[in-house]
């Protein structure tokens, strides 16, 4: 074990050896115990930092929102007035806005993502059609949120406005419904990719057994594939919901930014994420800022819980 860094490398310099050489200098030619300890310490520190970032996030949000927590307590969740001028902050309009827009998006997204999952995982597992669809879904997942928002603003809003004129409701164009539409487009790839994976993993024996009993493809999907993949599909939907809850930019650009309880499906509204995006830099006064941070805290907790539950479903499916 007596080889020091310099002897081993024979003096040749390579970029790849740089971290090793730096460690070697610190070890100063002993048997490498020093490097060993330093290396393990670095790994340990990095692991602690990862855990620390999450813990510190929670603590920071708690400290930041303490003023608002103290001032409003539980009524922060039930208050319907958001009035920075008189310093009254109730977040119910944003909770409702977030819940309605994300659930509506989920509702729109489910048939499409289920269809894509079945298309790729069961009906057409190979071939050019499947490759094209798969690449398209991956592209859809890669497009930045702000570009979805921009497109929705210029292309989707006029369409919704036409629809509203046709329906005889005030033609804002922007509002909850438009936000849900663009959210649905954005979350389809998440639930579809998880759905595809679990559906593709349905054991062939089960399907073959059903076919041999005279089942049609539809029967097999309904009675074998879907029951088998149920928890995985649920997980995909939950994870997509988590995405929809925290999605900021696209929603901010088309939801209309009205800090009141939405009165209908088309009314301008605000979500938790969009109100933070809109008002954080303009928040004057510590109570105002603190209230916005409390909304951030709620958002953090909700998405963390939804995701941990989603991952739990996936794990349960992986073990059975």
């Amino acid at each position, binding site marked *: 074990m007596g080889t020091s860094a310099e002897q081993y490398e024979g003096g040749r310099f390579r970029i790849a050896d740089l971290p090793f050489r730096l460690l070697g200098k610190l070890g100063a030619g002993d048997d490498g115990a020093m490097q060993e300890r330093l290396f393990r310490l670095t790994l340990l520190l990095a692991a602690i930092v*990862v855990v620390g970032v999450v813990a510190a996030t929670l603590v920071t949000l708690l400290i930041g929102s303490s003023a608002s927590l103290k001032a409003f307590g539980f009524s922060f969740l039930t208050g319907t007035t958001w009035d920075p001028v008189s310093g009254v902050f109730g977040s119910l309009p944003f909770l409702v806005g977030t819940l309605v827009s994300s659930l509506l998006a989920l509702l729109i997204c489910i048939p499409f993502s289920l269809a894509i999952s079945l298309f790729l995982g069961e009906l057409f597992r190979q071939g050019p059609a499947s490759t094209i669809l798969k690449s398209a879904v991956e592209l859809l997942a890669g497009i930045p*949120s*702000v*570009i979805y928002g921009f497109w929705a603003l210029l292309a989707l809003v006029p369409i919704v406005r036409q629809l509203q004129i046709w329906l005889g409701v005030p033609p804002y164009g922007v509002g909850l419904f438009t936000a849900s539409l663009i959210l649905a487009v954005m979350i389809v790839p998440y639930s579809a990719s998880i759905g595809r994976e679990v559906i593709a993993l349905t054991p062939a024996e089960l399907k073959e057994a059903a076919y041999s009993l005279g089942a*049609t493809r*539809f029967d097999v999907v309904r009675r074998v594939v879907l029951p088998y993949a149920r928890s995985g599909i649920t997980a995909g939907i939950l994870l997509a919901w988590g995405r929809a809850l925290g*999605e900021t930019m696209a929603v901010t650009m088309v939801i209309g930014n009205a800090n009141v309880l939405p009165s209908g499906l088309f009314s301008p509204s605000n979500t938790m994420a969009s109100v933070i995006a809109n008002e*954080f830099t303009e928040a004057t006064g510590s109570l105002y800022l603190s209230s916005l941070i409390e909304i951030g805290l709620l958002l953090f907790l909700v998405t963390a819980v939804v995701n*941990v539950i989603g991952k739990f479903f996936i794990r349960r499916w992986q073990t059975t």
Partner: protein
Amino acid sequence: MRERSIHLRNLQNQAFVVCVVLLSVLSIIPLAFILYQILHNGIASLNWEFLVSLPRPVGEEGGGIANAIVGTGLLIFLASLLAIPMGIAAGVYFSENSGSRLSYWGELSVEILQAVPSIVIGIIAYEWVVKPLHSFSAFSGGVALAIMMLPVIARTTQETLKLIPYSLKEAALALGVPYWRTLLKVVLPSALSGILTGILLGIARIAGETAPLLFTAFGNPFMNWNVARPIESLPLLIFNYATSPYPQWHTIAWGASLVLVILVLGLNLITRIVTARWKIQF
């Protein structure tokens, strides 16, 4: 189950297949629309002048996005500098000490961190960096993006190291190679392609992020190389210009969108090539 005629069941089956295909095709129509509009509107404003000049005030013709391109590059560089070494080291720790209590909490933290809405990460970076330094800065934007990148890299590193056979490590250790050299010179190099994939995925994830930059990097209409000052980025510029009432700024936003889409989708494409070309096989 009641007996039904085979014709009815066949019909039902065909209707089902048609439904699935129809819905699948319908769901990629928005993608076609988005890509078409970005290409159609973006190509018009895209030229060399656009890439190398600074934005002009409303009413003046021309102007470009050079400051945003530089800003996005600088932000990605800063975030990578912070997140890549940390993420790789954490991933190595989790895979080397799987089953330990710290690894359990670490993996949970990675999961949570991946799920944290980007706007909340903006708040965090604001509280950690902007507030103590009393100024919006490129550095704070880099920190925000690094927090988003960290879990991606830690996760992919850990997943990749799982694929490296234990015998490889044993062979090195049996030859008397110290543990840390085994990891640095044997295990990590053989996992290089997976780690590279993680880095590319991480960069692709943060390149298009706007929300965490709203109150950290903040935006800046001038060219800036100073990490202590506010800086423009492509997504921020698109957001500000797209929500402005001026058609001329919309044109610039389309051009910037095209540049950003090419960047992000290009990164995704490279990632796919890397995974396909250097698949880890033993």
